């Protein structure tokens, strides 16, 4: 189960890799306002999937941190 805390921690890890450790991240933050591009989002997703131990279904779209926290395991194999 991915929580908001998991999603925030994953985003902070990605931002730290970009040299941006001082960004305020919360559940309502949009990925766009955090200046996360598609590579960053792919990285966040891989971190969360490694934590969850399974692939996550992002087909519902990813706009906010809360969207990441609501991700469920993929069921299409």
């Amino acid at each position, binding site marked *: 189960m991915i929580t908001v805390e998991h999603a925030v921690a994953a985003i902070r890890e*990605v931002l*730290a*890799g*970009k*040299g941006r450790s001082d960004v305020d991240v919360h559940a309502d933050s949009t990925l766009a306002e955090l200046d996360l*591009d*598609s*590579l960053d*989002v*792919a*990285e966040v*997703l*891989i*971190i969360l999937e490694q934590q969850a131990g399974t*692939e996550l279904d*992002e087909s519902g779209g990813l706009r906010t941190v809360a969207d990441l926290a609501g991700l469920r395991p993929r069921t299409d194999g």
Partner: protein
Amino acid sequence: MTLGLFTALTRRAASAGGIEAGGERATWAELAERAAEQNRRHDGVAGRCVTVHDGTPIERVAALAALDAAGAQAVLARAGDDTVAVTAAGEASAVGILSSGTTGAPHLQTWSWGTLVAAVRVPAASRGGRWVSFYPLDTFAGVQALLFGVLSADELVLADARASLATACDGEARVVMATPSIWRRILVLGDGDPDTLPRVQVISMGGEAADQPLLDRLAQTFPHARIVHVYASSELGSVFSVSDGRAGFPQAWLETRRPSGIWLTVTDGVLHVSRDPSEPPIATGDEVRLDGDRVLFRGRRRGVINVGGRKVRLEHVAAVLREAPVVLDARVYGIPSRLVGSIVGADIVLAAGTATDAVHAHCRARLAAHERPRRITVVPVLPIGPTGKGNL
């Protein structure tokens, strides 16, 4: 009689010294006798293929020499690798070696012992003494190192790729041969400690590109050693060697015949080789770029991944990582991503007391966003593959 492995061993029988491998030791005389004894039991194998994959390294050397004497083709198959079909008919007094697969799927390349022995040229100053090979015996480099040792060393040590340099050298070695990945591992594992550092006269490496940080670290750790990078492959044999301490090779060598008799050309950014300029050149699969007076290796053609629709050369990323002062070694790979195809991942060995922050900063300064390793894992040491190679 053509000089092959058996004849070379027999000629050493009266000399002191021998081979050490896997905790076992045999004098040259004992090895020659073992090979002769096995040869007496061989019957009707001339011109046929015989697979050699069992036994200790010394038993395998004796088996190779015996099959050479019997006029058979020995095939050095890796344990568990049955992907290459071995036909019954073989070439007389030859050895079949599986390519490492870096130029495509592994395949069997056959060399006559006479050809391999004829290619061995050792300067007088390097002859004798203790020679150490970290190359697996079932690779082209491993067989070449065996022949160099049999023809030139007093003591030849066939060391496991994970063995300690200090133990293998026992204080001093005339020549130590290993892949760049194994040399990085040797430096990472602290064999560079000046108190335990063996005296090495010649450092030889091949099988992978030697980047500038590795050449610099080796020169710093072994200031009195001559450092030689050999460009060879199981498909082509030895092509050239470089010993000026710089990565790549001189651009002036292009379109000229090297001492090995092989011509070098660059077409579409890929190094090509041919035995004669009138023959169609063979693509090596090594991508290169011209940089000043130098031809530098960029990586393997197949070592390219797609990140968000853009190509990333994994070896380039690994080379940039290794240029970071805190990174002792690096291995780079693609991590599949449904969103962008792949992102770049890296396993790195860090200098003691350092953190990944500096590595991320180094990468941000040196790499484009799509090239930057997104997942960096710190490991104590990198694995060495069965052919002695690391990345890719």
